[in-house]
């Protein structure tokens, strides 16, 4: 980009303001492990907030309705099941990547090759943990 002071010359200021680039410019970048995992961390974070809010209010309704079997029975619904699978995947991804973030906060793992490696470790480990959760734990 040229000098910031030259941009406004000859162009209407309000027009310029309207066309000002807005972050994030997701579409113009080549997908990389770093950027994809970063946006997935946010996406899963928002998804977990929505998903666990639904689960929390579902359980609150179940408990305060004196354990209405109809409310509890919703767990057998196919869409609810699918939602739980997706939510668990999001949870374990966000958890693993969150631990990666904590290492960064402590000052470790900043070099590019290590960052890429830890990213792939997060992908593999979170997938494995999701499988173990549903096959072994549940």
């Amino acid at each position, binding site marked *: 980009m040229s000098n910031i002071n030259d941009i406004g010359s000859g162009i209407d200021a309000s027009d310029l303001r309207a066309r000002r680039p807005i972050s994030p410019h997701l579409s113009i970048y080549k997908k990389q492990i770093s950027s994809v995992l970063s946006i997935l961390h946010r996406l899963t*974070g928002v998804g977990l907030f929505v998903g666990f809010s639904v689960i929390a209010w579902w*359980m609150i309704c179940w408990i*305060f309705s004196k*354990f209405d079997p109809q409310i509890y029975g919703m767990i057998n619904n196919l869409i609810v099941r699918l939602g739980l699978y997706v939510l668990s995947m999001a949870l374990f991804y966000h958890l693993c990547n969150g631990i990666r973030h904590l290492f960064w906060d402590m000052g470790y793992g900043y070099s590019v090759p290590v960052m890429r490696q830890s990213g792939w470790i997060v992908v593999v480990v979170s997938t494995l943990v999701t499988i173990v959760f549903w096959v072994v*734990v549940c």
Partner: protein
Amino acid sequence: MLDFRTDLAKAKGNGSAKSGMHHWLMQRITAVIIALCVIWVFYFVHSISKKSPSDIVLILQKPYNAIPLMMLIISSFYHAALGMQVVIEDYVSNLCMRYGLIISIKIFSYVTILASVSAVVYLMVL
């Protein structure tokens, strides 16, 4: 000391609200609590799997399940409110909408914490 403030920020003269460090730190503290609670979640989900609803209530009444559950609810919804605030601050540029959303999400999160914890306490005194 490097000066990271932009000319515009200096001209506006709003300064720092001095709340950023607390936000950052609480996000990390709650993250560690949640990560530790997930270990309990594995044990808990295993103990309630394939159990009848009445058995699940009995398991939930145990203090070693009820207390980690309440810790998890409080720290995760607090963590979520902080995280949602960051996401909204980044993507919602209209200030009215931005602060409306942040305040709504915070109120919703705190009400959810309150209702969930009361539900667990209700179970324990049942």
